[in-house]
């Protein structure tokens, strides 16, 4: 299962694709929401690792508009709960992730993205 927490960490790893290779564009995705245990410390601790703009945009594309445009300076429980939902409860089951730079398509089926590269793409 890919969740947005992982999508937010994933750049294209094809040969020579080193700039403008993040975030991978989501295409034709089917999602499923599954409840996960809320751990405010985990979510808060993860904040510095996130590319905020990419996260907000991905969440909106999946129909979740709960996150503010800018990362808030004051972090309260309500915000952390929304962030928890976006990061850990939305699962992408089907679709594809496409590199904005080289155009490589990483298909997702049964919740598993296929990250295998073609011969000429191996770095």
């Amino acid at each position, binding site marked *: 299962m890919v*969740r947005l927490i*992982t999508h937010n*960490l994933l750049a294209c790893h094809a040969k020579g694709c080193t700039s403008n290779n993040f975030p991978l564009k989501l295409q*034709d995705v089917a999602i*499923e*929401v599954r409840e996960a245990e809320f751990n405010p*410390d985990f979510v808060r601790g993860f904040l510095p690792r996130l590319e905020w703009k990419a996260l907000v945009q991905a969440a909106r594309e*999946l129909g979740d508009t709960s996150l503010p445009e800018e990362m808030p300076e004051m972090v309260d429980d309500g915000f952390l709960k929304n962030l928890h939902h976006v990061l850990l409860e939305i699962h992408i089951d089907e679709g594809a992730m496409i590199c904005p730079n080289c155009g490589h398509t990483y298909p997702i089926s049964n919740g598993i993205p296929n990250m295998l590269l*073609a011969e000429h793409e*191996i770095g």
Partner: protein
Amino acid sequence: MSRPELVAPPEIYYGDIEAKKYTNNTRVQQIQADMTYRALELLNLPPDDPAFLLDIGCGSGLSGEILDQEGYTWVGCDIAPSMLEVALEREVEGDLFLQDIGQGFGFRPGSFDGAISISVLQWLLNAETSHPTSSPPHRLNRFFTTLHSALRNPSRAVLQFYPTSDDQIQLITSTAQKAGFGGGVIVDYPNSKKARKVFLCLFVGGGGAQQVPQGLEGDEVEDDSQARFEKRREKLKARGKNGRRKNIKDKDWILKKKELYRQRGKESVPRDSKYTGRKRKTVF
């Protein structure tokens, strides 16, 4: 019996039948669980902090299940679709990727608090895959370089593997070093033919220690590593007080899961069973 990695490429060797056989074998389950606990011990994570881990060559989730039990959030990758299929059926909680680690990772710098890999690295030295590939040294280099950058500074990666020669150990450690890692090889129970285990313990930015931890001596005792890991954590916890990590799964949860696996093991689960009857939402 000859070593699996000499028989066929991993995604062929671990086909549908072998993937189920491997996963349902209680002896295998015990050994993989044991080594996973030892890897966690060597990972030396702060006992109270939640952590985001990478399971390299996660297979059907025998190692990942321990990460679930211990309350870690994780991502797993493996080259064998049949193994990942079994992992889905077992409902492990990590995000799963179909990936050839010899092609490298695309994770942004500093993505993970640590990485483990249980019984995988020997595959990079031997059989080819049926996908496009390159030479073993090149694959190792690509693997270690991209792993190093995917890890936070400081952090550790602990990789248990089955080398066949000192040359192999040498090639692996020198490639890891060139990629920027510190650390080294730890051998547990070096004098026992059966229990001897090799762990590559890699440090990013010092890994929070000056020295590579010591290997275990004497005779192996089953279940030891879990007990040791949990004892150590309790001790550290008692010092630090309030646990901030996600709750360690309680016994009921584990029993429920075990029961689930047993049922699953008996009846063969149809390939799409996990997805039948679920609500889906399509977004463009």
